[in-house]
């Protein structure tokens, strides 16, 4: 396996080419979708899934914990946001705060059970908890609206100081989501390169060694799970705003499997940018293939199978292999460029 973030020459500095490319893409997206005959709402959904997938990859790719029930925290965020609007007050920041808190608490609770487990037992328990959340979201229909979903969730206006910006229009809302996505991606880039992120990666590489070097692995795994659940909660809140509703389906095993698929196809196991590539590929494939054939999932599934067979590192791995042919950075320079 290739390292997720080979020690970067400028270690953790956000001023790098891929970051610039990502930000440009984020800004250009509304124009690009129109240019390719797609629609704004798609750009919103992609940006939300980027937040979700990137947060998920902190757990999946960086810490090496294979959660298959992460959709649950997306859903919890969405419901928390909606319930806050319905029952507390119409407030953007309040709703986002509630969503983050709810997902963090739920993730933190589940992580108590999961952190001591490894491999398939971890995966299965994560599925079991995900299913229970999913099931509860349908079962508690008095609160959640059951399988019809929690409807009529408003998009509260964005208030910063005295300035107010209505988010009802998809274009403006996209701007808001994109800004958050940019913050999340920059933030995560800093996190994975920070001492904190280094320890997570060390745990992925060799849990036993990390323990004997003196890290309380259990606590670190708990933290990673909780943090990534919190990111999912943020994505969930934005999704609730985008759809004006919160639905139980996003919590289903199927959807949780999708994010794993996206992250893997994109190359999240080997590259920071992998999840973004995966999300883009999935959504574009769905729009383009889905517009041509109703059996697009068959083709996407086939592509996925072939990918796992021949190129399990995913898209980013493909790009990475091409790049690694270039000469490696001389070590001396790496040290020197750090202040």
């Amino acid at each position, binding site marked *: 396996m290739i390292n997720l973030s080979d020690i970067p020459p400028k270690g953790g500095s956000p001023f790098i080419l891929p970051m610039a490319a990502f930000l440009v893409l984020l800004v250009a997206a509304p124009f690009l979708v129109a240019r390719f005959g797609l629609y704004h709402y798609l750009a919103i959904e992609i940006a939300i899934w980027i937040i979700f997938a990137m947060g998920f990859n902190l757990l999946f790719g960086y810490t090496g914990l294979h959660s298959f029930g992460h959709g649950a925290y997306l859903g919890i965020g969405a419901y928390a946001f909606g319930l806050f609007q319905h029952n507390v007050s119409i407030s953007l920041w309040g709703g986002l705060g509630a969503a983050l808190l709810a997902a963090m608490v739920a993730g933190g609770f589940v992580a108590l059970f999961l952190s001591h487990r490894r491999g398939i037992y971890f995966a299965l328990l994560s599925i079991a908890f995900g299913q229970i959340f999913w099931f509860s979201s349908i079962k508690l229909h008095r609160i959640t609206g059951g399988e019809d979903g929690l409807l009529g969730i408003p998009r509260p206006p964005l208030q910063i100081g005295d300035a107010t910006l209505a988010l009802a229009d998809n274009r403006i809302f996209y701007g808001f989501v994109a800004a958050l996505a940019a913050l999340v991606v920059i933030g995560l880039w800093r996190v994975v390169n920070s001492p904190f992120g280094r320890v997570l990666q060390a745990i992925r590489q060799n849990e036993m060694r990390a323990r*004997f070097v003196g890290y309380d692995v259990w606590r670190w795994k708990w933290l990673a799970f909780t943090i990534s659940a919190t990111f999912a909660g943020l994505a969930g809140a934005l999704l609730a705003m985008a759809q004006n509703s919160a639905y139980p389906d996003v919590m289903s095993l199927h959807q949780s499997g999708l994010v794993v698929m996206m992250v893997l196809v994109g190359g999240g196991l080997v590259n920071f940018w992998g999840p973004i590539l995966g999300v883009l590929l999935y959504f574009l494939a769905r729009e383009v293939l889905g517009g041509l054939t109703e059996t697009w999932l068959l083709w996407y599934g086939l592509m996925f199978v072939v990918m796992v067979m021949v190129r399990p590192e995913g898209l980013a791995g493909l790009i990475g292999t091409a790049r690694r042919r270039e000469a490696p950075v001389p070590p001396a320079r790496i040290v020197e460029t750090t202040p």
Partner: protein
Amino acid sequence: MTLFQATGLQKRFGARVVLENITLGIEEGTVHGIMGPNGAGKTTCFHLLTGHHAPDAGSIVFAGRNIAGLPPHRIARLGIARSFQIMNLFDDTVVIENVLLALPAFKAQTGRIFGNGFADRTLIDAALAVLDMVGLADSAWSKTKSLSYGNRRALEIAVALAAEPRIVFLDEPTSGLGVEATRALAALIRRLRTRYTICLIEHDMRFLFGLADRISVIHWGQVITEGTPAELMANKWVARSSLREAV
């Protein structure tokens, strides 16, 4: 002064008693050897001493404190470092990162979720110094995977030393090494013995007899005998064996 004292350790796995009544003491500043034939329980004993397994009975006192049953990371933070027999490194990264992760100065700042873990020049220097001790400073920025077998062994030791331990446990450091590398390793341990207390599990008895101050022999899950190399050599059957040439 006895830095590390294990008394009456017992370990069962299901119905199987793997270790029985293990008692050994390690004096500060010495090299203590543990030897025994294959399958005699050496590695399990090692796992017990370093906290990988908790003993079913008995006590382990390190610097006046009973550490039996503590989780490995707590034991590690008390100043006990170990290497592994099956090499156990952070393989997806570069050599220096293995050492960095073990530095107490790095551990102190792992709460930082922003910023660069490698921006701190003093950390890098400290890690390089440790690598230099085992002769790996030149490979600091190479991929861990690309290291030769002998260098990986050296890195195992470097990771253990980076934690600035009071006692270092080395699990069969010579296994798989050639004559030349073994000799280099012996030289390295001789250099280290002035700074650390060392406990070595070894299969290679010549290596051990040449280095250790005291040796415990483990067989059938028990300490069957113990003494200085000279005391052990006094036995006529030992004197008849090829060990005689080692000392």
